[in-house]
């Protein structure tokens, strides 16, 4: 169930109202972040203060570095051969690029969901949900796994649909269900931040709205960063919006960041207006 909305919630933009930011989730402060693929620079000096307990949408045309940026938030970017990042990303004040920071520990605090639902095809729904736990943590008693599976699937709004087929293959589910299964898998490890890279681009409108409703519920517990190509999705589902752009003179950089309502009603930058109203390029 979504929290009950009031008329005032339409008028009040959570990003504008400082108090609406909760202590849920973790702040992610990105400072002078640049990212490279070998010699090629893909991101230039990004400064972005992701507020805890809110949904932050990252929008921008293809190739502007959106995905690269969120992959820098959990040190996934450097997994690609030759790729590296400079600058810092502070999770609750702790620099994940500090020399002694452990990428594995960081990734456990940050869940990630990708564009295409990617449940492990040979594993059951149940095994999919606990895959991250098994990988990261010592073996637990079965009762604890059972409890985690139910809690995660409930949180991902999938429990009622799959509770009788927990031991069937995850790939037998519909696309929307598979994506919610991936969200369940991501939150099973109890991360503090959830990164979603175009999570609905392979889904139909009904499944998309279900995911958006789900994100709305999850933001009470997690800081959510959502990369999306879908302008309406950013407008509907997020509290804050960051617009990125790459052009002839600059690689991917941040153009404008602010409360979603303001970005979509009164953007300050012309390129933001051009992009969100479909007139860029």
């Amino acid at each position, binding site marked *: 169930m979504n929290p009950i909305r009031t008329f005032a919630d339409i008028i009040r933009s959570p990003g504008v109202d400082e108090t609406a930011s909760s202590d849920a989730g973790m702040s992610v402060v990105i400072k002078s972040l640049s990212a490279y693929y070998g010699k090629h620079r893909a991101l230039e000096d990004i400064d972005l203060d992701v507020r805890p307990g809110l949904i932050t949408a990252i929008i921008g045309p293809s190739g502007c570095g959106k995905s690269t940026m969120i992959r820098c938030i959990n040190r996934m970017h450097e997994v690609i051969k030759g790729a590296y990042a400079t600058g810092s990303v502070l999770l609750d004040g702790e620099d994940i690029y500090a020399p002694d920071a452990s990428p594995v520990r960081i990734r456990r605090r940050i869940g990630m969901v990708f564009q295409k639902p990617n449940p492990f095809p040979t594993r059951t729904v149940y095994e999919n949900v606990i895959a991250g736990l098994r990988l990261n943590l010592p073996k637990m008693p079965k009762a604890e796994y059972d409890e985690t599976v139910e809690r995660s699937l409930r949180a991902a709004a999938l429990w009622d649909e799959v509770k009788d087929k927990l031991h069937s293959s995850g790939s037998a589910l519909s696309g929307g269900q598979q994506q919610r299964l991936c969200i369940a898998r991501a939150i099973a490890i109890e991360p503090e931040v959830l990164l979603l890279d175009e999570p609905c681009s392979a889904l139909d409108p009904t499944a998309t709205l279900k995911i958006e409703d789900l994100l709305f519920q999850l933001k009470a517990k997690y800081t959510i960063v959502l990369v999306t190509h879908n*302008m309406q999705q950013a407008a509907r589902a997020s509290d804050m919006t960051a617009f990125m752009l790459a052009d002839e003179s600059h690689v991917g950089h941040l153009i404008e960041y602010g409360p979603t309502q303001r970005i*979509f009603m*009164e953007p300050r930058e012309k390129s933001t*207006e051009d992009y*969100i*109203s*479909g007139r*860029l390029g």
Partner: protein
Amino acid sequence: MRERFSQELELVGKELEALAAFVGKQIETASSALRTGDIEAAQVVIGNDKYVNDRDIEISNACAVLIARDQPVASDLRHLIACLKAVSDIERIGDYAVHAAKRAKDVAGGMKLLAGDRIARMMELGAAMLGDSVRALVARDETLARSTAALDSEMDEHKRVTYQDLLGIMADTPEALRDATKSLLLSRFLERMGDHAVTICSWAIYSASGEYVEL
């Protein structure tokens, strides 16, 4: 990109301007009918009101279709909302032209219009403010919106003086009570034309800047 949408947005603006021009003409016709007691002209104005109401609904629907279909944002969305609001104000101004036309029929039936010069000037001013406010809205021209809204003080002044004069007449000449009351009410309605035009100016500024300003 979005060429079709941009064209259609322009079309909405053209329709608004056309409707404003039509209502402007209604005001002029009613004004001259008031002066001459031309009952046929007055009847035409009254009969045309249905057209104005129908256009209001059509333009509102077109705005709703564009909002639903193209899901505009930022200045496009503000502009459509402003058009949607302004079209109701144009329609209301049309109603005041009809009111004046009804008084013109009274004039044909023997009523003496009092403060006729001021009333004629108010109608002229109302038509001009209507035309300019809608032009400001369509062109998203904040400067024109502000200068047009500033004309409302002249409108208010005419109403104030008319009110004073007619109250004096009522006190002095009780037999003129009926004509004076009808003339007084007419000036009150004409003054409302200015208020609606000012509201359109506020929407023009909202469209241009994102801020709704009481003018």
